[in-house]
């Protein structure tokens, strides 16, 4: 109790002292903000899509095929070889040769993937257009392919392929895209005569498919 009284007396004694006076002086102007230029350029490290992403996309597009089923489909007609022939070329690690996984795409990789894409597109044409499979059962060419299509007829079929491979309607793409693909279709039709393994129209749709599976936008996924 004595202690509390002593502390209270000290506080009171302190509170009764002379008041400290703080006089207001003129306010100094704050220094101006320095203008800091921020570099807002892209800083993300440059990279390409890893090869597994390309390959997974391929297997999914063509009906969720297993690697073995893909091979069976693609090899016929000297269109593709064994996966093991291409491991490093596709960017996958090849432990036989101690070649590590490729972290960037390169020309050989695009060529090897292009070879696979060409094979799968041609095979799909054979299995769906050539065999006249019911449209509901088709995986890639799920549209009525009219011979010598007009621009409008081509656009309808192209839209189906565009949605499959690039994931959105062709109408939302750059305006020149439809023209470029229609031109490709016409060029390939002109390059081929009737009476070959596939009709000129079938070859043209195979070419459109081949171009779409290798399209630069697939690198965005």
């Amino acid at each position: 109790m004595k202690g509390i009284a002593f502390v209270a007396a000290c506080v009171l004694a302190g509170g009764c002292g002379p008041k400290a006076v703080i006089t207001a002086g003129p306010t100094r102007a704050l220094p101006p903000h320095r203008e800091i230029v921020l570099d807002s350029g892209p800083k993300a490290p440059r990279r390409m899509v890893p090869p597994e992403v390309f390959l997974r996309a391929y297997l999914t597009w063509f009906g969720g095929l297993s690697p073995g089923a893909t091979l069976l489909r693609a090899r016929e007609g000297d269109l593709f070889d064994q996966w093991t022939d291409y491991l490093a070329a596709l960017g996958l690690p090849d432990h036989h040769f101690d070649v590590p996984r490729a972290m960037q795409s390169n020309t050989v990789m695009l060529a090897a993937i292009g070879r696979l894409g060409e094979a799968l597109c041609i095979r799909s044409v054979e299995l769906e257009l050539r065999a006249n499979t019911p449209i509901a059962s088709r995986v890639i060419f799920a549209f009525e392919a009219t011979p010598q299509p007009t621009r409008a007829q081509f656009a309808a079929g192209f839209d189906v392929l565009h949605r499959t491979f690039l994931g959105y309607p062709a109408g939302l793409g750059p305006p020149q895209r439809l023209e470029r693909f229609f031109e490709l279709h016409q060029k390939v039709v002109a390059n081929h005569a009737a009476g070959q393994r596939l009709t000129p129209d079938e070859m043209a749709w195979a070419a459109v498919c081949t171009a779409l599976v290798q399209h630069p936008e697939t690198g965005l996924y």
Partner: protein
Amino acid sequence: MRRRDLLRLFAGAAVAPLIPGLARATPRSDEFFVFVHAGGGWDITLWADPRNEEKGLVVPASTRNTEVGGIRHWKPAGDSFEMLTSSTSSLRLGPAIGGLRELQDRLTIINGVSMNTVSHEDGITYATTGRHRIGGALAQSTIDVITASELGAAQLMPVVSVKFPSAFVGDQLDRRVVPLQVGSVDAVTRSFARSSLYFGDADRAAITALLTDEARSLASHSTHPEPFERLESQHRAIPPLVTGDFTRTFSTRQLQSLYPQFEYGGVLGEDTLAAAFAVEALKRDLVRCVGIGVSGFDTHGIDYRRHALQLQALFDMVATLVKLLETTRHPTRANTMLSEHTHLVVLSEFCRTPGINRNGGRDHYPNNSALIISPRFRPGVFGGTDPEQLLPLDSPLVASGPRPITPPDLLATLLGSLGIEPRRYLRDGEIVKGLLA
């Protein structure tokens, strides 16, 4: 010149550094490069830094631990071998030098290269990039990718690596030089092979034209145009390789028939094909750098008995390659042979222990040697190791010494010899002027 053209020229010159595409444009060079990696760690006491007597830790190669039957330059001396000497210099080589014995006056051998590692992955990375690994990651690009980025980005195939440990790291390099890394030459040719049953060349040309147009168009609309620009250039590189005679010429059979000088069925097996590929690809001006990986040097056990044969086969391959380059015309320079503008570097991740282990082999050792055959390098043997432990000695050639020569010094010297500022790509290393011609 019209006034308007003159003004346009000046305006272009002023603007060029500001436009990424123009600033990056690489001048075309006519120098070529071949990098050879002896995978597993080689025994330098059999060739570059020969030892033929027991001293300290050193147990030399002898008939007790080495199969000497096929070693052409093995001359017995006591229990070991006789050194190969030169009448014109103080050069001393070991018996596994093989065909390079004939070219000894052109060799630049650097001994006592300090590696600071006995891990394969780290040694490979340090030898080829000049930096140790950071954790598992590479900190710098390999030397082949750097030279290609500086001197050959416009080439159809700037870097082809057949089992060579190429790596593209960082963002200061041209995207076109991402190495074409494969396990065999065959994988390259198969990738460009196309069936003629369906599409023809005209169809494929139309598809490529469309893809390059699309890539260019996407690049022009993109915040990050570079991936699209590079895809465009990669797509554009494919048709000449698909439609020409590339796949036919570079098939295994054709290469073997074009260059019967190489020993295809020998100790190195398929690896030799990459050397034949290099000669033909340089001759056709298709590539800037070829990387060749040769495996089989990691001999910890009884397999060490054939280590000298493996080395001899490697140096025979290199010697054949050099001789072919001497007789092959440069693709773009008149009256010039390829050897005058080709730089060849042979390296490994480290050397093997000076002593023989209880399994009859040699283990990993943090010392190394390197071999360079280049018109920009001075022939001779440089650097050295101590007589008892085979460890690197300080080199008087290193200006920032006293210290031994290290891999970054060698890589910096190679870049410096080509007029490339090493510090743009290498954190460490100095240009060792004493190595340069």
